[in-house]
Every structure is written in C-alpha cells, then in structure tokens.
C-alpha cells in the first residue's frame, strides 16, 4: 500500500484508460480552467489589481473537477478556497472576476472577495469565512430538500471543528444525501496534520456510518468515487496546495504536481494535442475575460 502523502495513494490502476475520450477531455478542461483562472488571479494580485485576501486553488483543482463530473446540478457548498469549486460547478467566471475586482456586478456584489464566492442560481451556496461552519449548513440543505443531492467541500483543518464532526454524525443518522469532500492538503495554514491530530477522517466517517474512502487527487479516481459511493459519503482527498494559505507566495515545490501528472496521463490516452489545445484555450479565455473586466472597472 502506498503512503497517504503520495500521488498514487489508493489509486485504481488504469482508471483513466477506462474513461471515455469525451469524459477525459471535459475533466481536463475543468481542471485547466481552474488552473488558468487562479494563475491569473495570482498575477492580478501581484499587479495590485486585486487587493483583497485571496485563497487560491492552485494544485488542488483536480478535486472539484473530478467531483463535478457527476454532481453538477447538486447544491454545492465550497470551502473558503473556493475558486476551483465555483468554476467546476459552472459558476459564472465573469461574476467571480468582478467580485475580485470589487465591482457591484460581482457574485457577492463586492462584499465578499475571494472566500464566499457563490452563484445561488446555479446552486452554489456561499461560505461565510468561518472554517467548516458550512458543513452543518449542508446537512440542513439536505434535510430541507430531501429530493436534491448536496456536495460539501472542506479542508483537513475544518475536519477538526467540533461542529463538522457533529454534522457528519447527523448526516449519517438522518441518511442525508450529502457527499462530503475533504480537500486534504495536510496543512492548516502551515501546521501539518500530524501536529494537530492522531485520527484519520475517513476512518472516523466510517465509524459514523458514512461510506468513505481516502485517496489521492487523481481526477479520474476522484470522479470514480464521487459516482459510486452511496450517500451519505465522504471522500478524503490527499492533495497539494502549491501556494500559501492566502496570497501569492510559494515556499517551494509541492510534494507532487497533479497538473503535470494529469497532462502525462492525457498523453498516455493519446490526447496530448487535445490537452495542449484545451490548456491554451483556457488561458486565452481567462486572459480575455480579465482584460475585459479590468477595462470595465477602469471605465474604458
């Protein structure tokens, strides 16, 4: 068995080969859009076009991309590091750019900045910035709308909040149709998990009665479990945050580079040229969008 902090943790061999061509291309497109978007946000803060706190998803994009492949249409509650979830679940990019630029046309009318991005019309429910307090809210959404599915993302630090554990237990008791997704980058700001707790979230979830797995952030693997677990369920996804907790800084290379690994797998599928084209297309699309919105802000 591989170590939990490794890119192949609990990988299912050749899963990407079992996926259809269109599925893999769309999965990669969602991953690329998030990478291009947050790469551009980082530059916008360096350029001082964005001056509010930002929490970037760089390195973690494969999780939301993978889950979204089977759960668009569900009610979605992102965590504070939310851009990749917002975009993968079809949140409108121009509204997020406007929010980061502080425009009234932003997805929170300029009130929230980066962490609470929401698009309620597309069933993306905003986060209030208090770590993990949206997890009980997700259970409330599922209780009030038992006919709908709910997906709730949170981090490994949030998993330690008492009310998050209470929410997991309540969802198990009520058999709520919630998929909990822990984006486990092993860091609470900069404190590693080993310095904070001795227990394993997936094991705790199983003890509550949730269907649960603990896996690496391979997007095909994430998508597979998102499609096959019986709700209520939890996926703990080991991933790497490339940049600082907030802001644009970087301390060093990540433990693994999921984006590069995914591109290599696309090449294994014979889709290298298509992947290259998608990456270019997403970068161009994002840059055009930013230029347009920056011009709007400057009144030109």
């Amino acid at each position, binding site marked *: 068995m591989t170590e939990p902090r490794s890119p192949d943790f609990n990988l299912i061999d050749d899963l990407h080969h079992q996926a259809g061509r269109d599925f893999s291309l769309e999965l990669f497109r969602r991953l690329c859009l998030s990478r291009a978007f947050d790469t551009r946000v980082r530059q916008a803060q360096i350029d001082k076009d964005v001056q509010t706190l930002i929490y970037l998803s760089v390195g973690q994009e494969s999780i939301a991309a993978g889950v979204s492949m089977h759960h668009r249409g569900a009610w979605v509650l992102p965590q504070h590091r939310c851009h990749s979830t917002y975009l993968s679940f079809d949140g409108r990019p121009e509204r997020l750019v406007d929010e980061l630029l502080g425009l009234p046309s932003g997805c*929170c*009318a300029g*009130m*929230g900045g980066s962490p*609470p991005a*929401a698009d*309620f019309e597309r069933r993306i*429910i*905003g986060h*209030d*910035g*208090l770590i993990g*307090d*949206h*997890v*009980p*809210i*997700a*259970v*409330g*959404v*599922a*209780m*009030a*709308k038992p006919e709908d599915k709910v997906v709730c993302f949170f981090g490994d630090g949030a998993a330690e909040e*008492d*009310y*998050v554990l*209470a*929410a997991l*237990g*309540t969802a198990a*008791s009520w058999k709520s149709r919630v998929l909990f997704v822990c984006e486990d980058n092993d860091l609470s700001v900069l404190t590693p998990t080993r310095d904070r707790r001795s227990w394993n979230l997936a094991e705790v979830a199983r003890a509550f009665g949730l269907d649960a797995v603990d896996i690496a952030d391979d997007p095909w693997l994430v998508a597979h479990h998102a499609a096959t677990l019986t709700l209520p369920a939890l996926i703990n996804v080991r991933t790497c945050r490339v940049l600082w907790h907030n802001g644009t800084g970087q301390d060093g290379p990540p433990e693994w580079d999921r984006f590069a690994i995914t591109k290599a797998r696309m090449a294994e599928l014979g889709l290298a040229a298509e992947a290259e084209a998608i990456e270019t297309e997403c970068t161009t699309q994002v840059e055009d969008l930013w230029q347009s919105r920056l011009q709007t802000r400057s009144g030109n």
Partner: protein
Amino acid sequence: MAVTVADTIRELTRSHIAETNGMTLGQCLTAVGWVQNTVPAQAEGNHELPMTDVAGAGIAVGAALMGRRPVFVLRFQSLLWLNVSPIVNYAAKSMEIWGVPCPVLVRAIGVEGGGTGPIHSNCNHSMVMSMPGLPVCAPMTPGEYRRIWDHWMSHDDPVLVSEHRRSYLSDRELPDMVKDGAVATIYALSAARFTAEEAVARLEAEGIRVNLVHVLWLKPFDRSPSVLAPLLASGRGLVVDCAYECASAARSIAYELMEATGKPVRALGLEERSPGASRHLENGTPSPERIAAAIRALIAV
C-alpha cells in the same frame, strides 16, 4: 377559553408546518412538556436535533436557505452562547453578501429561578444586538407574538425572539400606561414588563405617577413620536430588563432615548453577579421593589 402565549406559539407553529411547509428544529422538542406546551405534538415537521449545539444552528440555517422558514428552538437562552455563530455570521449576513434570504426564527427561551442556577437563569438577548441583520424582539402577549410572527413571515430577515417562561401562561395584552402628571417613564423589556406593572401600581399608591411603555422590538428600537412622547412629558426615564446591564439592550435603548429626547434615562437590569441555584442566591428580573427604588432615586436627582 383564554388563549395564552404558549397556546399562540404552538398554534402558529402547527399551521406553519401544516400549511406553509415550515418546520421546527431543536433539542428535546418532544420530551416531556413539548417545551412548555409551545411545540405542537405532531411527528411531521418537528425535527429532533442531536445534542449538537453550533451544528444544530447551522442545520437550521441550511433549511432557511432552502425557503423552509424553520423555527429553531433553544430551550434556554444560555444555549445562545453556543448556537449564535451560524445565526449572526451566516443567516444575518446572507442577504447583504449573497442576496439570498435566510429567514430562520430563533426561539430563545429565558428562564430564571426554580433552581436553574448560574447557567440557565438569565436572558442573553443583548449579546446578538451588536451584529447587523438580525432583528431582536421580546413578545410577552398573545397578540404581540402574532405580530412578530407576521413580521417574520413577510420579511426576509432572520429574527431572534427572546421569549420568557414567565409569559407562557399569560393570556392578556399589556397596553402602555400613560398618565397626566407622570414624573417618570419606565420602558420595560421582556419579563421586566410584568414586574414593572407592579412597580407602577406601588408607586401610584405612594402618590408617584409613572408612565409605563412596553417595548416589543429591542432592535430596531421604535423611536416614533408616540414612544418618545411620555418621556418628553415626564422628563426622565428608566429602561428595565431581565438581562445584565453592561453592554445591554437596556443601556442601548436608554442611549437611544436620551439621544432622541435629551432627557436623562437610566438602565436597570440584573445585579452584576452570577445567579445561584439556591433561592437566596437567585438573581432574576428586577423586582417591583428594585424598580420602584430606582424610580425614587431618579426623581430625587
């Protein structure tokens, strides 16, 4: 048969569940007494929460976002300290940040005495008043409860309802008492409205005429001319509440009254000590004696 405050809450809730897809959430709702007979004894629509304070409030917020207008019951106001975070940080901000209404009705029940001691014997409605987006009221009559309910059902705000067990068996309305020649005006909140009535009668017997204005909405406080007129006429005021004085609803309202009228207004609340469980150590709503003494001191200045 007379309809009490408890009857009113129960029947409003029953029709909310039956007719408008509402729901009630709370801990131990269906235990003995059904929360002092304020929760309808029916399985549908009553959701027993696990003993998950904080998470329980979050679950209520989630239900509110879905348009179910949940009634979230806190059997003691002391539990507000644990449950208030999702209410003030999410529900109260939801409209301003996202434009999404989150109308949860929080029923926070005040108690005192009877051995409830240092934890449960208190009202804590003041703690939420410094946060925007959360109106706070303290209905003590059947008619007032219907009014605040109608307000909640017709608006998008969450509402914090500071209830008090002292009111539950009451079936009467509490009209303001405004008199010619009054030398002071009492603005009474929550359970202090009952003791203030007694204080006014005692003072009247001594030849001291005092107005009594009943305050339903703690926030926003009603500064209309009819509310201010008794104070302007009498020249001095006293705000009485069943909560502590420091950073309190009573002092906040006293400030608003002074600002609006230029007249001196003082605040009176619990003594600055923890209440004990034993009877001689209780620390409840200001008694008629304490209120009367405060008025005498006020008019002696």
